């Protein structure tokens, strides 16, 4: 093979004969016109070929070099004849030499005469000696000659000094020279029309002067003629070659046909094409040759050999022998730039071919080398412009296909050689040589096709991550025909259509047009690199280790590790990598026959092996990046990651993995992803990145579980991978996870449901037998294959109602081994409350890994209206559990500070110390916890408790009552108090919200009647809320100054209905002290009267009755344990569904109609109970309701005394009734004369005496001091209906009186109608300036007195008709 500089340009040889030595004069001009441009070759059998530029190599006719007397210094000016043409032996097979296509005669002759005398003869001589007569005269020439066919041309050079004297002279001389031209043409041009013009003239201008227009035309003419003649001779040659080839081809079947000669002949044509720059045709020729050679070789053994090849190659034989003897230096390049693996010039191949003395290996190498040469030339056809990359890519592709083929021949050759020489067949020598050759050959191609273009766009390592990112974003866009983005649905048909149209429409064949040569070249180079890489992989495999993904075991083979460990011990090197170096002996064995440094290094050092592998991969990666082959790019990345891992560079590997795993994961290549994840995990483990490692393991487990549980996944044999069976360094994933998790500084929360399915929380609580609180059972099924240790479990219950604690946490702290299948964990709490709770969160933790399920969150996430999945848990206390009940105390003193009574029902455990907190939950409520008192039971209150009430020594199963005063600013019917009690020993947390109705169920009104000696007090009692009341007793307590006279009748107990208020009247009279009536004291000194009312509310009564009955019946039943729950439920229901009207009815009939089973709504409660229990309980409850439809309510019969029936304690209200005050009490009288009989006639005037006296005793003297002695002006008024009485005299009058001063006067009364009529009333008012300040009442003694008025008749006649009497006549 020629060196690149020469075969990069096509050269046509042109020989010139320059007897006058004018060539140097024209060479400058000639150079500027070279190479020749735009030659159009039209051959009859071929389409028009256009040769854009043809390089011409001018050389002096060497035959005459010796003859000519030109100074040798001139030689330096000659443009190109650097290689002196060697006279070749004319061989029988043509096409071997590069003979000139054109011969030039440079004629210098200024004088016609001289021409005629000397030059014409000289030219003729030249023609005769050089041009075969046949060619110059006729076309009939031998085939032999036509192979070297050439044309000739005479170039007449006119010297400038010949015509520089004057313009005229110049004209003359021009004339003279033109005549010279004419003469030359006449003498030498063939007269035929088709014959080419072989004469051209050049007028040289003097030195330093530019050529003028005429001269330029002359030059153009000369060049055009040169082109035409070159083409003509080329055409001749091609035609001849084709004829020859056709002839040989037809003889193929004949015996004795020799392929080699045919080959050389055909190659001649190809070379011809190549020499004129028709490289495409040349390449086609070589392609044909290559195919023919293959055909010959394929038929070589079957048929009669048309050619005999050497069975072995000499070079290889030598190499083999050297290798065997250990003579070969393994670490140096055997094939390199000096000794290329594929070369067409290493030997004189053509001679060898002609001599049938060539091996198949050499032959194929030669063909390949020639093809490569042509392709390289194609790529560099244009020296100035950019390289054409497509041929380079073709070259790479060709190499990628051919080199492995030739490698096989190398192996066959070597096997042949090995057979003949006694040697160990198992030795890797053959393979090593083959690998070395292949590697070198590929390297050679890579070196030759290396171009600056690829280097420019090669990404550098630091930008790698950005590049990858770009890749990820760019690729789907460019590659996929649909819109990118997974979220976006691909239903946009229009978009799809347009993108397809865009791609398909303008670009019918993408592979050829749309792809730039750069892409193509990059791809092909990458292929070659991969070929090299495969050799390295094979080397690695021979060392028993894997590299890259091919043959990857997912980790290092333990057996290899073991083996290598031993060697390491022997070597006792510090190297971390155990298998870094190979022992000398092994080295020698393995490396025998290797003759490329890369391969040698790869064999002797694993480090180098990986380095080479990585370098190759990276280079391929870059190339794939350039060629936009996204998927191959990704594969290379994966390989890089893997090799880093295998090299122990875990950080690097992890870095790569973290980038590529998402790609494959996104594409859902499960198998790849999982393998990568496993290795990535191992990297993280080695890097001690515990957090990432744990997460990675979790991710793997996640996938393992997902693949196991997704429907239909197991059917897919190809995709199903049992991830759990994978091991990291011999440990299962779960084991690794547990081990790692313990070292984590914080907890990792992972979704519960991923790993544990069928989670069930038994909604039925189970009480502890010996203490407060309850247990729940959490059941779930582990989908993991292995056992996982659970340290603790936790269930959080919440409720929205405020009756109890808003959150209950159940925990189990006993470690549990959770294996495959169902596991039950019992969780407990010491909290005791009543209410319906929702499971809010479930979490179980194994070391630092917390599996959590947030049911509340799930509910929020689900569609509204979908039934909540969170189980409801009905929490209720055991019967004897600690409980608190808050109520009003039985006795309420209206005037005093109100109290709340807190009843603590201490559970089965003695409480040493507890803290009670009361929080007001109603506005304006203030609870004075500091003034708490124990009213019953035993308990000690610790005053020093902060913020709450410290209680201690609460005896078990006892009841303790506390009294706590409170104040209420706002008006409420009910008040709410949150009661919390916590104790540490025993552990107890009680919390509830107590609602107390503070409104009194009864209203009491007082009405006073003042009398001179006493006061009547009337008490009106009515119900406040329509519920009948039962007044059990009533007492107005006398004070030290006033005595009270109770009503005589014993009317209690009395029932008051809503529409029937009751009135009770008491007489209050001042007590006598020493015989005198005591005067009133001032208001704040005088003790008020105390009214005490003992009562019961009918609702309390009837509900208590029902509950008592229910309770006692329940106690007999097997459902005793549910008493608290059932009773509470029943109470709530009864309170809400029984109306005041029902209570009225109960009070009237004295029997209670118990609401029906359905009305109570037991079903709601039963739903929350375990099924079997609920069923039985329902039956029992139904039966109970049936049996107890009506309960007797004996109100009167048992209510004989203060002790009341039904065990329902009575309630007592104490009201202080201050005795009213009156400043002035008038006692008026209307005294009829004694003469007036019982009856008086109508119109009979009666003189009545009116007396008014007033007392001031109902006011304390101190207060009324200013008034007592003074006179007060009053006005009296006698009032009577005008149709009844006619009042004569002073009906109204003013008077002034002092206390006890009687005033008397007379009036006349005339009755106006008959019948019993009331006397007129007398009313007295205070008038005057201080009438507003003085209260005054009148006690009219005459009030209510009746006089009988009769008609004033003397005689009356009455007629009796039967039993009826008729007034007949009356006479007055």
């Amino acid at each position: 093979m020629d060196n690149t500089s020469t075969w990069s340009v096509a050269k046509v040889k042109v020989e010139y004969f320059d007897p006058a030595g004018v060539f140097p004069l024209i060479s400058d001009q000639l150079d500027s016109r070279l190479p020749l441009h735009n030659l159009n070759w039209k051959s009859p059998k071929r389409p028009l070929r256009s040769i854009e530029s043809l390089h011409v190599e001018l050389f002096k006719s060497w035959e005459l070099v010796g003859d000519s007397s030109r100074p040798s210094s001139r030689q330096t000016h000659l443009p190109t004849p650097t290689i002196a043409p060697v006279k070749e032996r004319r061989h029988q097979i043509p096409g071997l030499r590069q003979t000139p296509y054109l011969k030039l005669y440079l004629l210098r002759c200024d004088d016609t005469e001289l021409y005629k005398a000397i030059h014409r003869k000289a030219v003729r001589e030249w023609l005769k000696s050089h041009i075969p007569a046949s060619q110059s005269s006729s076309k009939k020439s031998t085939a032999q000659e036509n192979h070297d066919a050439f044309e000739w041309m005479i170039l007449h050079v006119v010297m400038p000094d010949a015509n520089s004297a004057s313009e005229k002279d110049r004209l003359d001389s021009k004339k003279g020279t033109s005549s010279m031209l004419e003469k030359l043409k006449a003498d030498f041009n063939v007269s035929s029309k088709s014959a080419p013009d072989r004469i051209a003239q050049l007028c040289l201008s003097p030195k330093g002067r530019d050529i003028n227009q005429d001269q330029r035309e002359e030059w153009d003419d000369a060049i055009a003629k040169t082109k035409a003649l070159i083409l003509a001779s080329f055409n001749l040659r091609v035609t001849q070659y084709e004829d020859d080839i056709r002839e040989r081809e037809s003889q193929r079947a004949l015996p004795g046909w020799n392929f080699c000669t045919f080959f050389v002949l055909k190659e001649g044509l190809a070379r011809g094409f190549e020499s004129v720059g028709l490289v495409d045709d040349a390449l086609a020729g070589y392609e044909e040759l290559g195919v023919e050679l293959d055909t010959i070789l394929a038929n070589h053994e079957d048929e009669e050999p048309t050619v005999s090849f050497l069975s072995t190659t000499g070079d290889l034989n030598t190499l083999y022998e050297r290798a065997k003897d250990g003579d070969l230096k393994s670490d140096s390049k055997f094939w390199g730039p000096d000794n290329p693996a594929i070369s067409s010039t290493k030997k004189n191949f053509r001679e060898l071919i002609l001599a049938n003395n060539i091996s198949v290996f050499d032959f194929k190498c030669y063909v390949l080398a020639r093809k490569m040469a042509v392709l390289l030339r194609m790529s560099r056809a244009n020296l100035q412009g950019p390289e054409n990359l497509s041929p380079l890519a073709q070259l790479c592709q060709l190499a990628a296909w051919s080199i492995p083929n030739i490698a096989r021949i190398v192996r066959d050759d070597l096997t042949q050689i090995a057979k003949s020489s006694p040697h160990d067949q198992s030795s890797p020598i053959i393979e090593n040589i083959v690998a070395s050759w292949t590697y070198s050959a590929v390297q050679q191609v890579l070196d030759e096709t290396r171009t600056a273009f690829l280097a420019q766009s090669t990404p550098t390592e630091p930008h790698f991550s950005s590049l990858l990112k770009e890749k990820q974003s760019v690729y789907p866009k460019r590659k996929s025909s649909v819109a990118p983005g997974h979220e976006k649905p691909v239903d946009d048909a229009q978009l799809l259509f347009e993108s397809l149209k865009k791609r398909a429409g303008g670009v019918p064949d993408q592979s050829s047009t749309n792809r730039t040569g750069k892409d193509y070249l990059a791809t092909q180079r990458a292929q070659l690199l991969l070929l090299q890489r495969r050799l390295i992989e094979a080397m690695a495999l021979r060392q028993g280790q894997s590299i890259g993904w091919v043959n990857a075991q997912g980790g290092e083979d333990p057996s290899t590790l073991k083996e290598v460990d031993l060697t390491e011990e022997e070597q006792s090197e510090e190297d971390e990598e155990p298998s870094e170096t190979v022992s000398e002996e092994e080295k020698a064995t393995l490396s025998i026959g290797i003759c490329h440094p890369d391969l040698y290094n790869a064999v002797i050092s694993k480090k180098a092996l990986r380095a080479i592998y990585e370098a190759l991969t990276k280079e391929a990666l870059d190339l794939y990046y350039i060629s936009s082959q996204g998927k191959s790019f990704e594969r290379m990345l994966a390989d890089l990651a893997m090799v880093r891992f295998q090299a122990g560079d875990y950080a690097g590997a992890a870095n790569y993995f973290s980038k590529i795993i998402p790609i494959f994961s996104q594409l859902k290549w499960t198998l790849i992803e999982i393998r990568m994840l496993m290795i990535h995990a191992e990297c993280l483990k080695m890097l001690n990145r515990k957090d990432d490692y744990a997460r990675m393991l979790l991710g793997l487990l996640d996938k393992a579980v997902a693949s196991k549980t997704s429907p239909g996944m197991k059917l897919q044999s190809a995709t199903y991978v049992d991830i759990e069976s994978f091991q990291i360094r011999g440990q299962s994933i779960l084991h690794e996870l547990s081990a790692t998790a313990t070292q984590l500084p914080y907890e990792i929360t992972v979704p519960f449901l991923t790993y544990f399915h069928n989670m069930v929380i038994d909604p039925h609580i189970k009480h502890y037998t010996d203490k407060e609180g309850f247990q729940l059972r959490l059941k779930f099924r582990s989908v993991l294959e292995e056992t996982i240790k659970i340290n603790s479990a936790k269930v959080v219950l919440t409720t929205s109602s405020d009756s109890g604690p808003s959150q209950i946490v159940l925990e189990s702290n006993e470690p549990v081994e959770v294996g495959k299948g169902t596991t039950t964990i019992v969780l407990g709490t010491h909290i005791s409350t009543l209410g319906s709770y929702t499971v809010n969160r479930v979490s179980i933790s194994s070391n630092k890994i917390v599996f959590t399920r947030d049911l509340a969150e799930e509910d929020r996430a689900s569609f509204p209206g979908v039934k909540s999945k969170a189980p409801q848990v009905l929490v209720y206390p055991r019967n004897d559990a600690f409980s608190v009940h808050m109520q009003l105390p039985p006795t309420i003193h209206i005037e005093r500070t109100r109290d709340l009574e807190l009843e603590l029902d201490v559970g089965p455990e003695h409480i040493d110390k507890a803290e009670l907190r009361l929080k007001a939950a109603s506005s304006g409520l203030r609870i004075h916890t500091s003034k708490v008192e124990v009213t019953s039971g035993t308990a000690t209150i610790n005053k020093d408790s902060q913020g709450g009430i410290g209680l201690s020594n609460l005896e078990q199963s006892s009841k303790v009552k506390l009294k706590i005063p409170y104040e209420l600013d706002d008006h409420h019917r009910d008040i709410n108090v949150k009661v919390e009690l916590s104790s540490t020993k025993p552990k107890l947390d009680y919390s509830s919200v107590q609602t107390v109705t503070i409104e009194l169920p009864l209203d009491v009104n007082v009405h006073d009647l003042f009398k001179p000696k006493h006061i009547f007090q009337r008490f009106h009692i009515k119900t406040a809320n329509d519920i009948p009341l039962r007044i059990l007793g009533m007492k107005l307590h006398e004070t030290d100054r006033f005595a009270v006279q109770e009503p005589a009748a014993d009317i209690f107990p009395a029932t008051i209905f809503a529409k029937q208020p009751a009135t009770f009247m008491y007489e209050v009279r001042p007590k006598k002290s020493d015989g005198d009536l005591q005067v009133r004291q001032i208001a704040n000194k005088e003790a008020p009267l105390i009214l005490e009312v003992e009562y019961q509310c009918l609702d309390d009564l009837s509900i208590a009755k029902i509950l008592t009955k229910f309770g006692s019946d329940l106690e007999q039943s097997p459902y005793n344990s549910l008493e608290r729950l059932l009773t509470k439920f029943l109470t709530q229901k009864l309170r809400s569904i029984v109306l005041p009207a029902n209570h009225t009815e109960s009070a009237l009939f004295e029997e209670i109609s118990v609401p029906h089973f359905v009305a109570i709504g037991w079903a709601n409660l039963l739903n929350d109970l375990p099924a079997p229990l609920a069923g039985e309980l329902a039956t029992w409850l139904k039966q109970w309701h049936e049996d107890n439809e009506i309960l007797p309510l004996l109100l009167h019969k048992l209510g004989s005394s203060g002790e009341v029936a039904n065990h329902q304690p009575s309630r007592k209200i104490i009201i202080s009734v201050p005795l009213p005050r009156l400043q002035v009490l008038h006692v008026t009288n209307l005294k009829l004369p004694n003469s007036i009989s019982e009856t008086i006639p109508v119109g009979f005037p009666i003189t009545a005496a009116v007396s008014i006296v007033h007392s001031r005793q109902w006011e304390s003297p101190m207060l009324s001091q200013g008034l007592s002695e003074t006179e007060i002006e009053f006005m009296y008024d006698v009032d009577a209906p005008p149709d009844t009485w006619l009042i004569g005299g002073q009906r109204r009058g003013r008077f002034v009186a002092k206390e006890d001063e009687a005033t008397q006067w007379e009036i006349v009364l005339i009755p106006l109608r008959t019948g019993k009529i009331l006397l007129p009333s007398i009313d007295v008012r205070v008038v005057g300036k201080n009438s507003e300040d003085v209260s005054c009442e009148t006690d009219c003694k005459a009030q209510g007195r009746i006089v009988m008025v009769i008609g004033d008749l003397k005689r009356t006649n009455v007629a009796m008709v039967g039993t009826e009497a008729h007034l007949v006549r009356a006479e007055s």
Partner: protein
Amino acid sequence: MSFYFAIIGTKDNPLFVHEFGTSKQGGDGVARFRDEARHMNPFIVHSSLDILEELQWGSGSMYLKTIDRFQNSHISAFLTGGNIKFLLLSTPDLPPIATGLRPPASSSRTNAAFSSFNPTAPATEEAIKNFFLEVYDAWVKTIMNPFYRVDAEVNSPVFRARVGAAGRKFL
């Protein structure tokens, strides 16, 4: 021969993957990929999509014949109208080999053990084409399921059975 058949969606994601072995010449229909090489199959198929994307606009036919090779595996492709790609990776079964001094897999053509398999032989191409057509038939029926959406994985056991049957019939 062992086969690895993959259906690739429009986003280059596998929709369906099936492994099977040849049933011709006494084959039992069981894939015999080497365990350690099994994970290479997705890699190879995935990277051959590069080639497929170049070739798919070149010819009008759905069957693209052998488009790529990797070591001794060959990949044949079939392209549906919906840009779903069927890729069949075929690998000749390896004779059990000692890992010690194995002939290097420097080229797919150098190992004599594989030389019997010619992926470009007309008979092979025709068999693979028939296989693809049969699968395509089943595929169209499968995706006619109204609940199927583009690029969703196909888990239908019926479809899998059909692919298996087609494999037994032709390969």
